[in-house]
């Protein structure tokens, strides 16, 4: 029998702390598959953020730095400037990247830092127990928007890919989803492209990944995938927002 699918070598053997059905695990696996396929395991340095992915360094068999909340793009800048020949990626959630770290991601993009950003958007703060995120949908109930997010009170969801795509220094900005195997395959292609861009020195690449939080959404994992398709994608349309400088 020949293998059709094997566990990526760039993942450690550790059981993740993620809740059952959380698509963080899928994103991790895709990043690890890409690292394996590009043969860059021994030259990759990851930056973990604050939120559910705070322990990302336990799950990747590569060097890692754990950054303060929102500061992963600044930490990645420091690493990449010291080791321009190494592959540096951040792995950040929506609270980290779109809220407290909004300045750091915008300016890393503006500088055209030659790094890869994996941005997990699940429309909620997972680690702290389901509070409203900058990406929470209008009407979505969270523990700090108990009547549902209302734009007159809590403002509108922040569309980071659209925002970052307006920045001249950003080379590649794409939004994808993990709600079924076909979209997972597309997400992997996007992640691979984002790493290849860095290898080729093309500059700042960000892959926004629409993800689930079954626990804090109060749904089964399957219901959560369907919720992404039915409710998140209409607000956060999928696709490439920028492919190449100045486009």
């Amino acid at each position: 029998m020949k293998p059709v699918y094997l566990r990526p070598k760039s993942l450690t053997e550790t059981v993740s702390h993620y809740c059952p059905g959380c698509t963080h695990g899928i994103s991790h696996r895709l990043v690890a598959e890409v690292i394996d396929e590009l043969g860059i395991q021994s030259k990759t340095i990851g930056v973990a953020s604050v939120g559910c992915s705070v322990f990302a360094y336990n799950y990747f068999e590569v060097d890692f730095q754990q950054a303060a909340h929102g500061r992963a793009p600044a930490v990645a800048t420091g690493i990449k400037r010291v080791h321009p020949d190494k592959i540096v990626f951040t792995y950040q959630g929506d609270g980290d990247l779109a809220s407290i770290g909004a300045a750091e991601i915008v300016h890393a993009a503006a500088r055209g830092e030659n790094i890869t950003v994996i941005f997990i958007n699940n429309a909620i703060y997972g680690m702290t127990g389901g509070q409203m995120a900058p990406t929470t949908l209008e009407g979505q109930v969270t523990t700090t928007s108990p009547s549902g997010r209302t734009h007159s009170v809590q403002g509108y969801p922040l569309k980071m890919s659209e925002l970052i795509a307006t920045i001249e220094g950003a080379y590649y900005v794409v939004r994808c989803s993990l709600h079924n195997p076909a979209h997972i395959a597309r997400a992997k292609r996007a992640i691979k492209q984002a790493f290849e861009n860095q290898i080729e020195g093309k500059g700042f690449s960000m892959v926004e990944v629409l993800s689930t939080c079954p626990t804090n959404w109060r749904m089964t994992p399957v219901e959560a995938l369907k919720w992404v398709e039915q409710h998140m994608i209409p607000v956060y349309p999928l696709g490439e927002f920028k492919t190449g400088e100045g486009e």
Partner: protein
Amino acid sequence: MAEPILMKGNEAIAEAAIRAGCRFFFGYPITPQNEIPEYMSKRLPEVGGVFVQAESEVASINMVYGAAGAGARVMTSSSSPGISLMMEGISYLAGAELPCVIVNMSRGGPGLGGIQPSQADYFQATKGGGHGDYRLIVYGPSSVQEACDLMMKAFDVADKYRNPVMILGDGMIGQMMEPVVFKDDARESSISEKPWATTGNEGRKPNVITSIYLDPEVLDAHNWKLFRKYKAIEENEVMYQTYHEDDAEWFLVAYGTVARICMSVMEKMRKEGVKLGLIRPITLWPFPKAILRQVADKAKGFLCVEMSTGQMVEDVRLAVGGKAPVYFYGRTGGAVPLPRAIEKRVRDVIAGRDPVVTDYLEHNQGGGGK
């Protein structure tokens, strides 16, 4: 021996950092330290280094974190309000045990305060500032030459202990010009000597730079490990200078810019027969407790002079331990104590006109020197 060069403090400090092997600088403009990033933006590319003007002090210190974790000799500089913004990152650097050098050319606070020299950040620098149980190694230079020498030393000490080091200067040290000699020991940066750094895990298990330890037992052990390191620093790294320790009956205690003024006061008053000495802490943490405790056995009293409402004086009192009275004189907000004001204060103290508990405000009005 190299010839002395006349240089502005900020620029001299920047040059010293480069000669110490620093090749990475991340910073954000703020007065009165702008000559440091300006100098670095020109010089670092000449020596194969990297200068990045960050979007904020918050980003600067986190770029320092990344570069330090990647094994580089790295620094940033700022002034009081900017240093406050860096406190989160400094706590992370201390927690993750990353070596780096942070220059604080401090200015008057609180809040936006002013831009003139101040020593009001002593507590922030020496007692933490950020969250958690950590210490910075803090140097308080009192001349441009000393600032340069300490800058060179700071990178070595930071690497030796894997700990952030702060140079606590002030607008005066940064802005004045003095002759400086750069000792001829320019070094390369020493990335290869840091086996813990994240450089890509070629041929080894992955390295992780982190400060999160959710298991209380593990975090407790980590904190006591840091504590033992701080103990070793207290044992090995204390620096101070004493003047007329042998015959002095009364001691001024001051650091940085104020120590220079106190030195003039001391020399003038000694000529008039006053047995006055000076103790000048060079490391503000670790604080030179032992020498103060030692001279307290024979001293009639101490007068601590600062550009604050009284911060280092608390450490002086702790060190003296009640063996002799400790008086205080301070100016704030950019006002620099005048020699004649300090002299009057010394005479008041010696004449017994000044109780230990002092009404600072009344005494300080009009500069206290009229």
